[in-house]
């Protein structure tokens, strides 16, 4: 059967950093789009500068930066200094033959380099230009830099999230970056649809803070309609008597359980406490008005169980339950494994990094669709190709750009030394655990390794 790369032939130029845009273009590159990542040796993506494979800081450490690699599979890297006129011209030359230009720098930066839509339209009339910012592309907060932790606070989500009766809480990942990226993918595809029908390009602006506000209508509407502010209630649920997270056997092991109806409660008790003779809990109203008592009762039983077997027992009886998985358990989760959610991505040989399982994408297309899964680029890996073949510049010109450090393949910034060892982090409790045997675990579980290269 013939396979289709849905976005084949689409060229996206990305001036991105960290997650909000790189994650979005990663998903589009999986679907066959060609993504040219514009990098800089003077101002590299922070993801090039921290967290390296196996904490190794020697040599070309920037090509072993774990988050960069995971976010930038399939992409080409063109490492060019826009502060130098020749570099700036070259980027414009690339844009003149590209379909989409996506950036998540502030508008100040875009203006500085003449990368605003009005300018780029002159070079490529049907180009689609995407500006993904923390708070907005124009307006009073538009010059404010942001990462997810800041936009989450501003969005209204944090003020409603946290332990009951306490202040706001946020996860340890920059959650809104993904929310913005997901909306960005949708916006780009919508603009492409329009271009396909009419030949017209356009300018897209995405506000990360607003993208999250758009996903909390419950809070917004409670206030706009009834002047009610939603306060944090932990894992509780206003309409469901038992809705919480309970400790299980093990170190920091937990299970979430939802039991609403009488039947769900009865099934839960059948698993947890089959000898329970107390009849009062059979009454929905009693359960609903004695939630802490219920929580204690369930906690006293869950602690006797391991989380995953307990989850399975409960789900088999029709009780909603989910083990709280940590990063390691998620990677080895049997359901995700069965669905091939983690896909094996190779790395450039010079990095010495084995093939690794990376999260795929939030959709599974039909069997006629081919997915692109090429290695992430080393810094400036495609400088020569893009300069001489894509743009048709002379070898002489290329040499000039390299000699004058307009194009680079190396950083002159020293690696950020690993100041706290992984073992120290474990004892400080800043990480849950460290498994020195991780390489073998990955190789055995996913049946990949350097031998397969």
């Amino acid at each position, binding site marked *: 059967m013939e396979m289709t790369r849905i976005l084949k032939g689409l060229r996206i130029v990305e001036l991105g950093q960290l997650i909000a845009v790189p994650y979005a273009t990663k998903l589009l590159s999986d679907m066959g789009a060609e993504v040219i990542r514009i990098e800089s040796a003077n101002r590299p993506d922070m993801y090039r500068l921290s967290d390296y494979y196996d904490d190794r800081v020697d040599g070309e450490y920037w090509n072993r930066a774990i988050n960069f690699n995971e976010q930038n599979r399939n992409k080409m890297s063109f490492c060019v200094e826009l502060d130098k006129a020749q570099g700036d011209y070259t980027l414009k030359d690339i844009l003149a033959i590209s379909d989409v230009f996506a950036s998540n720098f502030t508008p100040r930066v875009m203006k500085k380099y003449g990368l605003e839509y009005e300018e780029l339209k002159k070079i490529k009339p049907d180009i689609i230009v995407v500006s993904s910012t923390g708070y907005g592309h124009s307006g009073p907060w538009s010059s404010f830099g942001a990462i997810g932790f800041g936009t989450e606070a501003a969005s209204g989500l944090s003020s409603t999230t946290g332990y009951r009766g306490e202040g706001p809480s946020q996860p340890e990942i920059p959650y809104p970056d993904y929310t913005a990226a997901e909306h960005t993918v949708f916006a780009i595809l919508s603009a492409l649809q329009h271009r396909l029908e009419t030949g017209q390009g356009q300018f897209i602006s995405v506000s990360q803070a607003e993208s999250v506000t758009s996903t909390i209508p419950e809070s917004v509407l409670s206030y706009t309609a009834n002047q009610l502010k939603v306060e944090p209630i932990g894992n509780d649920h206003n309409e469901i008597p038992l809705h919480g997270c309970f400790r299980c056997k093990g170190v920091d092991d937990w299970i979430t359980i939802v039991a609403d109806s009488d039947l769900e409660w009865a099934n839960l008790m059948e698993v947890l406490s089959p000898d329970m003779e107390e009849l009062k809990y059979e009454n929905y109203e009693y359960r609903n008005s004695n939630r802490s008592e219920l929580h204690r009762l369930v906690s006293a039983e869950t602690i006797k169980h391991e989380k995953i077997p307990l989850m399975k027992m409960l789900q088999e009886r029709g009780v909603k339950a989910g083990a709280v*998985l940590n990063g390691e358990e998620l990677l080895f989760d049997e359901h995700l494994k*069965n669905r091939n959610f983690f896909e094996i991505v190779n790395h450039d040989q010079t990095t010495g990094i084995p093939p690794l399982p990376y999260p795929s994408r939030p959709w599974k297309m039909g069997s006629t669709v081919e997915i692109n899964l090429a290695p992430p680029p080393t810094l400036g890996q495609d400088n020569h190709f893009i300069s001489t073949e894509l743009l048709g510049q002379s070898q002489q010109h290329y040499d000039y750009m390299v000699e004058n450090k307009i194009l680079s393949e190396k950083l002159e910034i020293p690696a950020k030394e690993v100041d706290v060892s992984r073992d120290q982090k474990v004892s400080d409790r800043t990480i849950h655990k460290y498994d020195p045997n991780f390489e073998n675990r990955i190789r055995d579980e996913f049946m990949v390794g350097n031998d397969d290269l």
Partner: protein
Amino acid sequence: MDPSALNKIRILDLTHFVAGPYCTKLLADFGAEVIKVERPDGGDKARYLPPFKGDLHGPEDSLLFQYLNTNKKSVTLDLKSRVGKKAFFDLIEHCDLLIENFKPGTLQRMDIDKEALLKKNNNLVIVSISNFGQFGPYRDYGANDLIHYALSGLMFVFGSTGREPLKHAFRQAQFKAGTNAASASLLGVYGVKYGAGGQSIDISIHESMASAVRDTTTSFATTGVVPTRQSLMNGEIPRAPIKAKDGYVVPINFGSTDWEKTANLLDNTDLLHERFSTKESRRFNSKEFEKLVRESFGKKNKFDLFYEAHSHRELVYGVVQDVSELLRNPQYEHDQYFETIDHPSTGNVLFPGSPLKLSETPRKAPVAAPLLGQDNQQLFQELTTLTTSEIDCIRESIR
């Protein structure tokens, strides 16, 4: 002419609750014609979800439902009935996409399977949204957002170390999956244009969440480290909400910021003392450090801290806002983010708008969510072979 980006796309929308309707809302807001199919006995169950306006609690009054269903049309069909099925398959012929979020296997049990659908319309793209996808060991597991937070790994890195893991308020997993499903729908439509033909696309809410928790799986795969929840203030100011005088801010340093900048921002010369001048010394004096830091934050107003931080490029602090503050926020005001929608049952209510601005194909002005079955007459007449009496019969079945 309608300038909307998606005005050539017609969707048969079998979704209900939150994830599916948010998907089709995005598509409808940018111009797709969305025909929402609801069951005649009560319709989409999101019609009964809070918040409501005051004491209004009828099937047209849920504000959450209204938010999720702007710019859509509504027809009622009993897909188990002969007439319902006939109308359904007639409609399918006219649509580019079928989007559904029943439990896996439900449609098949009603003899609405991929083969039958593609036979009727071989370029149809079927998008199925479910908790854990259409196959796999957890396929039939029950779930809501709490369960997804647990099984996606997000919860493990959410909350305080040693304490119970947390989830976000409300239904983030649903919205995440809805957004991804909207993108996948458009990819499906492209697929048809570029030769992939009609196909079915599997959206797992769980995987939508897990995709965004990539940091933690990648951490293990590349360094063997399993990240945990928020640590104590151990000589560093955690990147987490901290109490200011009148609320909370989130201290965030972008890149390598020298300590002096933070001490100056906090207006506390004690923090410049050599006891705190290096990472090591702050760590060594961590108790005293924590006390001073908390006191300093507690003396300043949150917006003062926020604006002052942003006058330095490296300090990209966040400020925790509640809805009342959002409604007055100068950036949201500039973007005209909030918008009034006039609904026949609830009147004018202020709704969240969209984070997306498309210069040439702006989002459609929101048309209020449809009343249950309001488009039966028109759409059945226009797009199906139902007889007048069959259409009347459907109308009478609405409860």
